[in-house]
């Protein structure tokens, strides 16, 4: 990244929590994202939809620099969070990831106890105060509606939980470090319908406090829970609008083809 890009002054409009500016992503020679500009609003749920390989997950993972570990990854353009370029040289990536939590496709609790899973993010920040940790764990588990189900088994292995419970635990683990943004990469694709409904309900509640970006293959899901929806195709942002508008009266033919199931 060039130095002068760090100094770009953007008027910070509070409602635009995340901003992408002429973002291009390459994996070696392959161009996965072909120049996307996008503003994502605070305290809203924004859904990314599109066929497999359209770049929506890659794009999502730019916001917490999760692509940094992918071999051959290279990015052009800028990603701003609250107006700050998160790809500038001296950024503290660990600090960034505490602010931008992530929930993955497959529930991936650590092979530790339920308590240790939720306390992990706080412990790696050096917090040792037992009573604080305990309160925080309880509070986070309550937020995801898991407390009553697990309060007796808090010291048992998280791997003993069901898939849906594991995913809610992963959300609780993310909430415990108090992020302001939560990225979700197809969080319900590995879950049964009942667990999915619970997670959707939870996501809907969370938008009071958090800015949520969710990648989903499930268009009903995007329609149900999101305020805004972005349709990606072949590494490009085709259409981005209020979900109501995009799903009922899309501007672009490609969007319509996709949401009516004519391809994808």
């Amino acid at each position, binding site marked *: 990244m060039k130095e002068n890009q760090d100094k770009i002054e953007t008027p910070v409009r509070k409602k635009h929590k995340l901003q992408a500016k002429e973002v291009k992503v390459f994996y070696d020679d392959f161009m996965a994202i072909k120049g996307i500009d996008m503003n994502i609003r605070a305290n809203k749920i924004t859904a990314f939809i599109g066929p497999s390989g359209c770049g929506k997950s890659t794009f999502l993972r730019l916001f917490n620099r999760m692509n940094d570990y992918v071999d051959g990854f290279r990015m052009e353009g800028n990603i701003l969070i609250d107006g700050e370029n998160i790809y500038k040289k001296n950024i503290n990536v660990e600090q960034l990831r505490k602010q931008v939590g992530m929930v993955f496709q497959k529930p991936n609790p650590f092979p530790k106890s339920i308590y240790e899973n939720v306390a992990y993010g706080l412990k*790696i920040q050096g917090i040792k105060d037992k009573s604080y940790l305990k309160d925080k764990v309880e509070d986070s588990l309550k937020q995801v509606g898991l407390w009553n189900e697990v309060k007796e088994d808090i010291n048992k292995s998280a791997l003993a939980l069901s898939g849906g419970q594991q995913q809610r635990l992963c959300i609780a683990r993310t909430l415990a470090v108090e992020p302001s943004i939560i990225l979700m990469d197809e969080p319900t694709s590995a879950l049964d319908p009942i667990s999915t409904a619970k997670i959707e309900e939870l996501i809907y509640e969370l938008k009071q406090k958090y800015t949520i970006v969710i990648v989903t293959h499930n268009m009903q899901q995007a329609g149900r829970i999101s305020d805004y929806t972005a349709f990606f195709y072949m590494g490009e942002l085709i259409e981005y609008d209020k979900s109501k508008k995009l799903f009922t009266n899309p501007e672009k033919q490609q969007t319509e083809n996709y949401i009516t199931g004519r391809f994808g």
Partner: protein
Amino acid sequence: MRKLKEAVIEKTLLSSALVTIAVTAGIIVVLSIEAINFFREVSIIDFLTDTQWTPLFTDKHFGILPLLSGTLLTSFIAIVFAVPVGLSISIYISEYAPQSFRKTIKPALELLAAVPTVVYGFFALTVVTPFLQTFIPGLSSFNSLSAGLVMGIMIIPFISSLSEDALHAVPNSLREAGYGMGSTKLQNAFRILVPAASSGIIVSIILAISRAIGETMIVAIAAGQQPRLTLDPTVPVETITAYIVQVSLGDVQHGSLEYRTIFAAGITLFIFTFLLNTISYQIRKKFREKYE
């Protein structure tokens, strides 16, 4: 015709498998018979409690403890040296090194295991011991410290290679979960990946211990041939394996009590390595269940 060919191949494969089993069984039988003959003349209580091992002297004592302490002391030194080094190497290769480096360094490390142990033995005796003597003036020319350290070098690849495999096998989703929570690389490695790979790491350490206990040439050359019940790493000791070599190469009469001592020592060694291998097999079985 084809069927016949298949049948011949199958039987050949089966018989080669049976040969290995038969040889193992044969070894155990011979070991046991000779050991039983030995224990007819020497009480097992003396064997386990006497603190002297002097079967070749006129005043004969048959206490295995001095040989056992020699074996355990050298192995302990080797493990204390090899575990931190081997584990650091495995974490570096698995989590820090670029992919291309990993591909070169792993085979290079495994080469350490291919060095003949007699070479290690002379390396210990002629290089490491004189070097250590510059720091530790009281160090005898034969001692368990330098034999143990060099044995540690020998078993590093066992630990680093198997531990690296175990770390590498940890699902990427866990790695991402850790980074996603804001872990640094070091935190991710030590708080998530090492615990997740712990069973594989423990297996690698047990196999390394087993290898160290059974190691012969290094200790026979560099640790000395003086059975001595001690925890002092600076003095000559004798391990079980070194004793077996000493007597096998000496001129004891076939079938005599002195001759049978090597089987008694051998079966002791066998029990130890057998136990260690069983434990590691059990852990590995559990480990496999976890990820499938």
